[in-house]
């Protein structure tokens, strides 16, 4: 109470000049970050939209292209393939990572000895560098002599898949590596959500004679929907952005089997120097990511239950 009344007196006594000074102080806090943020993030964002309507190779005169770049997308075979590949990756990576991370979280959400050790172990691949991880995966899944295929052969598999080296298996291999690397991170979010479910709910259900599955289906899952919503938004965005893992594991190949949108953007911009066209591909990526995120937020109230 005393602070409130004191604050009121200072405000009442404050003159316009002191307000101005207060604003100045506030802006001085913001400015170091804001200047950099505006120049290196906001300006390029706007520039990116403008660039998608331009033709520019970075050296010659920049010229207006209108909708040409977007029209070209329709006939660009590689764009179509990378769009399909991206959707393939998203539709594999998102559900698998979610199921794996929920499974791990449920296992760890018990009074276990060494729980922290397990948690650390499952989380570790997430902080390991993608390049190092991609290299090991490639070696483990080496088609001819890799340990995975040698094990498969010794188990009697006649023609084990050629994994990252085969057109059909390259994307599943990348998805597998991605799930392995990412699930520990989302597990921690699920674990935090699980631990916030009041135990009284389970006790009440037990009194009513609910079995394990019923408790899971009618208490755990509904109580986890906010976490599931959050994870699905994050995971979908990050899956659309996939680049590093694929770049190191397959380079977009074999052929164009794992050529995803960001690899196409990268190649168009930094190998072919078609900056305008690459920006129009980037706009497609942006519209898809934002579109899906907006739809998710719109659908949120239909299935997400907040306490």
């Amino acid at each position, binding site marked *: 109470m005393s602070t409130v009344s*004191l604050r009121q007196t200072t405000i009442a006594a404050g003159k316009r000049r002191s307000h101005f000074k*207060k*604003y100045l*102080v*506030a*802006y001085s*806090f*913001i400015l*170091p*970050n*804001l200047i*950099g*943020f505006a120049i*290196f*993030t*906001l300006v*390029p*964002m706007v*520039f*990116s939209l403008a*660039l998608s309507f331009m033709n520019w190779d*970075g050296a010659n005169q920049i010229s207006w292209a209108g909708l040409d770049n977007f029209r070209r997308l329709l006939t660009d075979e590689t764009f179509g393939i990378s769009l399909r590949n991206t959707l393939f990756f998203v539709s594999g990576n998102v559900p698998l990572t979610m199921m794996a991370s929920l499974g*791990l979280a449920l*296992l760890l959400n018990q009074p*276990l000895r060494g729980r922290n050790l*397990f*948690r*650390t*172990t*499952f*989380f*570790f*691949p997430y*902080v*390991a560098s*993608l*390049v*190092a991880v991609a*290299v*090991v995966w490639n*070696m483990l899944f080496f088609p001819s002599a890799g*340990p995975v295929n*040698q094990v498969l052969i010794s188990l009697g598999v006649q023609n084990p898949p050629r994994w990252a080296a085969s057109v059909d298996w390259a994307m599943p291999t990348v998805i597998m590596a991605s799930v*392995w690397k990412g699930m520990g991170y989302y597990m*921690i*979010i699920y674990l935090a959500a699980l631990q916030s479910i009041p135990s009284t709910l389970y006790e009440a259900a037990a009194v009513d004679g609910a079995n394990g599955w019923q408790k899971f289906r009618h208490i755990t899952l509904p109580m986890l929907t906010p976490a599931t919503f959050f994870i699905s938004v994050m995971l979908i965005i*990050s899956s659309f*952005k996939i*680049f*590093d893992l694929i*770049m190191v594991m397959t380079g977009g190949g074999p052929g164009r089997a794992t050529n995803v949108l960001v690899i196409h*953007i990268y190649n168009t*911009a*930094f190998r072919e120097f078609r*900056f305008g066209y*690459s*920006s129009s591909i980037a*706009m497609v*990526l*942006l519209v898809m990511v934002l579109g899906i995120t907006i739809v998710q937020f719109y659908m949120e109230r239909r299935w997400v239950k907040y306490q």
Partner: protein
Amino acid sequence: MDSSAAQTLVHEPSVIYPRLKIRLGRVITYAILISLALLMLLPFLWMISASLKMDKDVFRYPIEWVPAIPQWSNYIAIWTRIPFLTFFANTLKLTVTITLLQVFTSSFAAYAFAKLHFPGRDLLFLAYIGSIAIPWQVYMVPQFIMMRQLGLVDNHASLILLQAFSAFGVFLLRQFFVSIPDEILDAARIDGMSEYGIYFRIMLPLSKPALATLTIFTSVAVWNDFMGPLIYLTSQHLKTIQLGLRMFIQQYSADYALIMAAALVSLIPVVILFLALQRFFVEGIATTGVKG
């Protein structure tokens, strides 16, 4: 009557052997967890094992997990084959510089967003949040063009400038700062402390967990960054460890053992940081759900 009899039958074992049932469940849980943990660690264990072998033995089957004659010389060779030390030093320099700048500028701005009042605050904060939702890949090309105009391509300054002012860092710290009660700050103001004094002597000391979280996320992200250096750095003497590792893979694609040794060495700083500060990692993710 029948159904109740059936019920007692079903329940009987757990009444008579409740401990045994619980213990069996435990054993199964542990068995699953241990095998999953091994599965998670297997690639790293294989990496260690392979890094100590001769190239011709790396793919020998059955796998010899502990090499009979460990080739420690592999760990010397990687430093001489490619300028690994330079890559290491470059990455360290970038990581430290970017992390320090980011934590400083972010916490400074976050204080104003959380605790000060000024016109345009909410709109500006909305712009910050909005920018987080936009993938970097969408505007990386204009950024590159801009940096080229500034003459900063193939220069560490470009990567530093691009990553020092993070909207994400502002958001993370602002969320934490908001939770610190205004009463503490008001008391300090009445005692005549300036806003800068409050920021340095009250806000920062109270926010150690949040600052640690941002420090860890940023440094791990910069250390592991691959796409940024790939786009901006072309000179050998400027490259980072991730680029160096990839170069190594491409140049010596058959030197399996050396590649594994190099990959392992590139992981060590992150492993140390992670193990030392994993508490903050976990808390940071659990409370904010943020991503590095």
